[in-house]
């Protein structure tokens, strides 16, 4: 056979044909993956109420803040759940902790500025590893007016799984923890932005 006749048998077209088949196979596979993916997205749809039930009470962002009751500097009992409706900055601290000491004046500033709008600062002193007297001395020295609470047996620190001081929980008026900040000192700007966010009901 002549070369011209061989060409007429379409032999050189086979590689092109195979390539075309592979291309179509890849497209069909991609399409099937996307269809299954879309079906899975639809199947995974969930009622927002159900997701709320998955996040009941725990010391983490997105959960309801665990309730507790502690004595304040006046000897009165303060219960977290009684403060529902107020935005709360819950700060765990100790008088010997340098970053805790550094952020307290900013905390006082924010408390004074936003307390009328419904913001409360609760400063839980880790009294089991600190001293009530020293905590009160520090509060008096810096003119702190927000409630200082005393965790004598460390149970509330344990309840909130506090591993480092300071640790701060930002709790919305509905009792949901919006953010947890481990370490410090927090700047006044950060506290102000978070306080405004809590009061405006943001990130609910």
């Amino acid at each position, binding site marked *: 056979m002549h070369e011209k006749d061989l060409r007429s048998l379409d032999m050189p077209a086979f590689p092109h044909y195979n390539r075309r088949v592979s*291309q179509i196979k890849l497209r069909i596979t991609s399409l099937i993956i996307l269809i299954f993916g879309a079906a899975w997205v639809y199947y995974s749809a969930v009622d927002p109420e159900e*997701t709320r039930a998955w996040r009941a009470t725990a010391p*983490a962002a997105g959960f309801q803040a665990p309730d507790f009751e502690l004595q304040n500097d006046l000897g009165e009992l303060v219960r977290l759940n009684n403060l529902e409706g107020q935005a709360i900055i819950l700060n765990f601290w100790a008088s010997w902790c340098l970053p805790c000491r550094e952020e307290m004046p900013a905390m006082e500033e924010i408390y004074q500025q936003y307390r009328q709008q419904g913001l409360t600062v609760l400063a839980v002193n880790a009294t089991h590893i600190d001293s009530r007297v020293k905590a009160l001395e520090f509060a008096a020295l810096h003119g702190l007016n927000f409630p200082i609470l005393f965790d004598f047996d460390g149970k509330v620190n344990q309840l909130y799984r506090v591993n480092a001081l300071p640790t701060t929980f930002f709790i919305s008026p509905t009792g949901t923890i919006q953010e947890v900040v481990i370490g410090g000192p927090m700047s006044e700007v950060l506290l102000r932005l978070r306080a405004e966010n809590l009061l405006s009901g943001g990130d609910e």
Partner: protein
Amino acid sequence: MFPIIQIGPLALQAQGLIYLIGIWIGLTLAEKLAPKVKFPAGHIWNAASLALIFGLIGARLSYVVLHWDVFAESPGSIFSLNLQLFDLWGGIIFSALAILIFGQRKHFRWLNFFDASTPLLGVFLVAHSLANLAVGTGFGRPSELPWAINLWGANRHPSQIYEICASLLVLAVIIFLIYRQPSLPAGVIFFLFSALSSTWRLILEYFRADSNLIFQLRTGQVISWLILAVSLYVINKLFYPITTEKG
């Protein structure tokens, strides 16, 4: 959960430490594998350093601009060390711009650059899942399965462990392909990684309890599906580019 790693008097936040180690391992791996995807190894660290520096500056600048009314009252806070005062998207945009300008000046072949960056992204995803496990974020929905873990007051799917396994598997596939399939078209490694990662996210998001919702659909899944669609489309185009026949 181990959010704080205590070394003597020093308390280190596990999350940050895991990300740092992850980025370092990722960069080292990317640099080692770069020649196999036909990209100069030396550019990896330079591009990453620029992305990091400009990313940090951009993230803070963006945050300051967005909240200027508050920063105007205390301008010194612009230089605050608080990690919460960064805007993620501002950081990403500035990083991308820095890499874009650097790449243009160094005449990057962009598809090869994407392939060379893939090991870094792969290790970063593993680190991200590990960090989630360390601090208890990205937690699973309640479950009574024998391998459920007790977290945040309930027995839950160990969603973080699922994600660690999935991201390790994807990383292994990518490293295997880089070593064994050097003839793949440029860009396939990156978009295959993107497709595989979005697939596992699409599947595993179902087991999570912290999903954001959009019309009852999980936002993470919707975004993953879109990324998957784009990745598959590009892979098709890379394997079978449109050619104009001359006759």
